[in-house]
């Protein structure tokens, strides 16, 4: 009997011999999970899940149908109009085809699933016939988010004719910068709401004047900084507001591009000639005039390369980063700006620098903002907000490993995290916070330049886990504000911050001295 019992016991023991290993595993797992949980709760006090970006409010678009006009239907203009829900047949065909060939290409899907903004494109003005016709084509294309277009657009040869159409409620200004101030001013005076591309104006004086006219007329004005809609920037703002970076004395913003396209050496359209381009109107507000010819064609299609039409890196790229940091940290206009640079790589007749560095001083905030740009290196530096306790790296190589994410890493000499660093709860080698939206979704962002924009959050953002084009959200914000009588996110007040800061830096480069902002006189001294 007892032998039988022994046999059974031995049998049982052999059968269950490895169960303790399983138990050991569970104990270790539990310990690890507890450690992780303690680490997590010690790191960024539940910030991670709590505050998600504002949901996209639906329904506002239903209230009132709006008629819009576009002035300047070029590369950017056509993107803005897509944000409003109108794309050319050529674009929708190509995008649909791309999606077919590359399953990771979500551009078409993103476009087709964007909200119908309840508006019509009824006026198009462009000085180049080919683009004006493309704009008309976009207004008719039935392949769009929502129902087929209610009405098709009329072409206007001059923007004043478009503004004279009483049926148009609002205009998008996507011309080169040297036209922004005049068109936006006339539009405001005509009672049209304005969405104006960045940089706000070509000159400082124009920016001040435009700000005042928008205030006087009370129109709804939106500056084209779609970063205002990017979820990552809102998260970053929360983190900095909570003081998790400690005192921030230095912010570093960077632009790196390394392609002719990135340096604005764009193709001269084969159909561009004296008959298809209204060159005289184009150069009317620019300081230097040129007869139509080879030089004029270059200047028409590559206008960003000359101070006659824009401000180069300043208005084109610094403006994005400056506005983003202004959004995150509420900086306002700096007290001083200085900048240096030169034309070191693209010696192609341009007069704007291709390597350019600017510093902005905020003595009242104990802060320096440093901007550094090169058009001959693609090294992804990203933007860094450096605090006494932690550094936030946005975009670039270590931007959370994903598109427009950011990471926060504790500083080894941090006061706030001292104890936790000593205890090993926080390690400076690993981020204490990682924000990588859409990490479970995969995008096929292909070219280096689109990756540059994507890293800065300018191409895509996420709302409730769904990929949306921030340009669409920015247009929607503007149209909703028109309907609801509220202020859009990049209204004329914050637009002025960006414009003045950029003009200070541009003037510093041109004048070779430090520029000071006098807030009382609203002047540069």
């Amino acid at each position: 009997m007892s032998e039988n019992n022994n046999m059974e016991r031995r049998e049982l023991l052999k059968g269950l011999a490895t169960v303790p290993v399983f138990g050991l595993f569970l104990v270790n797992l539990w310990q690890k999970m507890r450690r992780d949980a303690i680490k997590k709760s010690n790191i960024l006090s539940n910030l991670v899940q709590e505050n998600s970006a504002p949901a996209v409010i639906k329904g506002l678009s239903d209230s009132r149908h709006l008629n819009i006009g576009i002035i300047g239907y070029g590369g950017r203009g056509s993107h803005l109009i897509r944000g409003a829900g109108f794309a050319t047949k050529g674009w929708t065909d190509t995008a649909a085809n791309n999606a077919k060939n590359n399953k990771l290409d979500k551009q078409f899907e993103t476009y087709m699933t964007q909200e119908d903004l309840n508006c019509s494109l009824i006026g198009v003005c462009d000085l180049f016939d080919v683009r004006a016709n493309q704009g008309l084509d976009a207004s008719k294309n039935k392949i769009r988010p929502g129902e087929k277009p209610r009405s098709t657009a009329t072409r206007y040869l001059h923007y004043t004719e478009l503004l004279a159409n009483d049926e148009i409620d609002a205009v998008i200004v996507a011309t080169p910068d040297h036209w922004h101030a005049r068109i936006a001013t006339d539009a405001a005076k005509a009672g049209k709401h304005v969405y104006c591309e960045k940089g706000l104006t070509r000159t400082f004086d124009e920016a001040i004047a435009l700000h005042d006219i928008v205030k006087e007329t009370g129109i709804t004005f939106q500056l084209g900084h779609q970063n205002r809609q990017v979820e990552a920037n809102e998260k970053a703002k929360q983190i900095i507001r909570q003081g998790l970076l400690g005192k921030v004395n230095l912010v570093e913003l960077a632009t790196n591009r390394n392609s002719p396209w990135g340096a604005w050496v764009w193709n001269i359209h084969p159909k561009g000639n004296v008959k298809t381009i209204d060159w005289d109107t184009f150069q009317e507000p620019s300081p230097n005039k040129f007869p139509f010819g080879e030089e004029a064609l270059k200047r028409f299609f590559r206008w960003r390369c000359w101070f006659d039409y824009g401000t180069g890196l300043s208005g084109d790229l610094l403006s994005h980063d400056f506005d983003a940091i202004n959004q995150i940290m509420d900086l306002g206009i700096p007290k001083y700006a200085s900048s240096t640079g030169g034309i070191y790589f693209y010696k192609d007749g341009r007069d704007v620098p291709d390597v350019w560095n600017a510093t902005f001083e905020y003595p009242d905030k104990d802060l320096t903002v440093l901007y550094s740009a090169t058009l001959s290196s693609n090294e992804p530096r990203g933007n860094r907000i450096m605090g006494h306790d932690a550094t936030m790296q946005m975009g670039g190589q270590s931007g959370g490993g994903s598109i427009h994410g950011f990471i926060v890493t504790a500083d080894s000499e941090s006061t706030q995290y001292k104890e936790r660093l000593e205890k090993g709860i926080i390690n400076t080698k690993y981020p204490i916070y990682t924000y990588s939206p859409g990490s479970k979704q995969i995008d096929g962002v292909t070219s280096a330049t689109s990756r540059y924009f994507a890293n800065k959050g300018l191409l895509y953002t996420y709302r409730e886990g769904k990929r949306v084009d921030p340009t669409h959200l920015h247009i929607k914000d503007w149209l909703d504000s028109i309907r609801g009588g509220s202020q859009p996110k990049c209204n004329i007040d914050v637009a002025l911050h960006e414009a003045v800061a950029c003009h200070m830096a541009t003037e510093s480069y041109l004048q070779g001295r430090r520029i000071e902002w006098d807030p009382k006189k609203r002047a540069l001294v």
Partner: protein
Amino acid sequence: MKNNPSGNYKYVGSQLNGLVLLRVLIGWHFLYEGVSKLINPYWSSAAYLLDSKWIFSSLAKTIVSNPTLLGISDFVNMWGLTLVGATLILGLFSRYSALVGMGFVLLYYLFAPPFLGLEYSRPGEGSYIIVNKNLIEACALWVLYAFPTGHVIGLDRFFAKSEPN
């Protein structure tokens, strides 16, 4: 060691100990690989699949581009690894779990084999040419399939029909 009529092996001590140890260690590895994915809400098989090279790379792309397929892939990986791990440790259905586990690691091998000329963006944790740890683990699981031990040390013992040693 010899085959008894029911197909179960009898081993001498060191053979048995070695095989059981191998089974438990591989089980532990699988179990933690599975559980660590289960408890990480951000884990996805997408990153691995996206970096796939060789014959399965287009299949990998198809999976990644389709949220449903990716969801299935994530689910199968998380739970598959966990179950294979647990059953290997416990010695439950251990022949089948060795076979399924072999299938898993063989697929990982084939989705990203360390062949000459294939460059991966994810940094490797070792140096491999043709042979890597996935391939070795697959082979080890084959051994565990061929020389089962669950019926001797493990829960399979309670299901074994014949008299084990």
